[in-house]
């Protein structure tokens, strides 16, 4: 009996050890929440603050989880803000001319996936470093939007309450529907990275492409798949943001740029590829979202936000460095 208990605790401690990075990130999230709650219990026991948080945070979390795959593959995608905007532009333009929500959605998703696919080709087939290739497409697609719209936006108020609007960003009771999409994609990405062959190939490609290639993995194809899915999800995020705000504007997506990347690294994904965590990026995204509403919730002005983002990012990275060093 006693032996069994020791065995069980041993097994538990191995498990805890294996997931210590994710656990660390989760504790940071909890810590921040407790600090906010202590500072302003009234605001943080009111569900409205969480509804506010769950309007935009899921969009940024979906982006973070999708780009985590790119980073695990030892690449980076900087182009997602422009991909979001370009897809949203396609969506609103097709919507205005056809008035068919599903054709618009389809066109926008295809456009976003195509941008991702092009990024993949530039990296895998032409051999450009992804940092530079996607920096190029970040400018390029934003540039295309600027030229086409001359900086003007489009109001899409007529979409409110339509079927597409309801299933993408409607409210279930008080909860924004995008939160359910976020949970759904969390499960999907987690399954891919932990339980699916594709995830195994992404890990191997990011860790040691030479060895992956020698073991028969089509490394180029894996990279193209990874960039294409990033394009697809950037597109979906762009459409969600547009529907949530019922408005397309030319600089859409720019606000997500640094916070999404910060979420991934707060979550414990290594910038060197071959390792990373979907759950970490999920919590990382929630931390950024919580800070966004929480800083205002405790009575500070919005001028404080970036200071706290930076602080949390650096604290998380220090914590990860310590956790990685100890066995």
């Amino acid at each position, binding site marked *: 009996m006693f032996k069994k208990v020791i065995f069980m605790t041993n097994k538990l401690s191995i498990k805890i050890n294996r997931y210590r990075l994710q656990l660390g990130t989760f504790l940071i999230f909890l810590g921040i929440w407790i600090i906010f709650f202590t500072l302003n219990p009234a605001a943080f026991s009111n569900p409205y603050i969480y509804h506010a948080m769950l309007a935009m945070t899921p969009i940024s979390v979906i982006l973070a989880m999708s780009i985590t795959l790119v980073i695990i593959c030892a690449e980076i995608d900087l182009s997602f803000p422009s991909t979001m905007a370009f897809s949203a532009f396609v969506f609103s333009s097709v919507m205005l001319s056809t008035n068919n929500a599903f054709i618009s959605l389809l066109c926008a998703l295809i456009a976003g996936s195509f941008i991702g696919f092009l990024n993949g080709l530039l990296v895998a087939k032409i051999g450009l470093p992804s940092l530079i290739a996607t920096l190029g497409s970040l400018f390029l697609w934003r540039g295309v939007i600027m030229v086409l719209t001359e900086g003007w936006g489009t109001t899409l108020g007529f979409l409110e309450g339509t079927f597409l609007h309801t299933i993408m960003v409607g409210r279930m009771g008080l909860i924004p529907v995008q939160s359910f999409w976020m949970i759904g994609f969390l499960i999907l990405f987690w399954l891919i990275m932990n339980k*699916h062959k*594709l995830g195994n190939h992404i890990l*191997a490609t990011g860790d040691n492409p*030479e*060895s992956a290639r020698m073991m*028969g993995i089509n490394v180029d194809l894996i990279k193209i798949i990874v960039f294409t899915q990033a394009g697809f999800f950037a597109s979906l995020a762009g459409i969600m943001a547009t529907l949530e705000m019922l408005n397309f504007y030319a600089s859409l997506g720019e606000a997500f740029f640094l916070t999404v990347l910060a979420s991934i690294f707060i979550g414990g994904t290594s910038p060197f590829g071959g390792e990373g965590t979907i759950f970490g990026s999920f919590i990382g995204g929630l931390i950024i979202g919580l800070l966004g509403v929480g800083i205002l919730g405790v009575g500070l002005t919005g001028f404080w936000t970036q200071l706290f983002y930076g602080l949390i990012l650096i604290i998380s990275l220090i914590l990860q460095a310590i956790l990685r060093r100890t066995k």
Partner: protein
Amino acid sequence: MSEYLVQMKEIHKFFSGVHALKGVNFNVGYNEIVGLVGDNGAGKSTLIKILSGVFPWDKGELYIKGRKIDKKEYSVKKARELGIQAVYQERALAEKQCIWRNIFMGRELTNHLAFLDIARMKKETEEIMKKYLGFTSAAIDPDSKVSKLSGGEKQGIAIARSLFFKADLIILDEPTTALSLSEVRKVLSFVEKIKEEGKSCIFITHNIYHVYPVADRFVILDRGKVVMDLEKRSISLEELIDKMMHIALGKEAAINV
């Protein structure tokens, strides 16, 4: 069935004007360990890359299990299908991944939706670790990261992986370079395992002391040519070293002229 598992006849290779292999004849028998020895630039890695399908040869013939190989159709994939696998020290494993993910890399056991059968892969890995590697320590299990293993153990994982997937010829490229003495001993015991399993091995090294205990035959390459091909029973370690010294001195003399 042919007498040889692999037979290379009069193989030539040119690299933009450099004559890297000058009519090499090289054979590997069934269940034979061949020590392929030579200095840097002797043509060892060129020969091995041709054999494992990395690039084609320019002139000559290659037979595998008695079948003549068409050089236009030969590739790394084809070589693997024919049971030839190369293990490169730096490029063999993905070190941040755990052992079972490395063993089954590119050949995962999955269901029809390509979801991984993790329980089965872990169980197989555990058996591979026991059977081929003699790992019994509780500190290392299929979930351990490869980066936690020693240099010799990493080589062992790569060799065990090839054996598990039914390779007939395992090519080890400098498997003992930069390893401590006890780690070299581990690698040599893994090479003996290849022999016990009835498979063949080409052991590439420039350190004759490492390969002498395990090899059945020695082939010495020098400047693109086979200068010696001898069974172990016909030569002692001292004689072998003596011959190698002669080759090295001959090379120096040639340079001095």
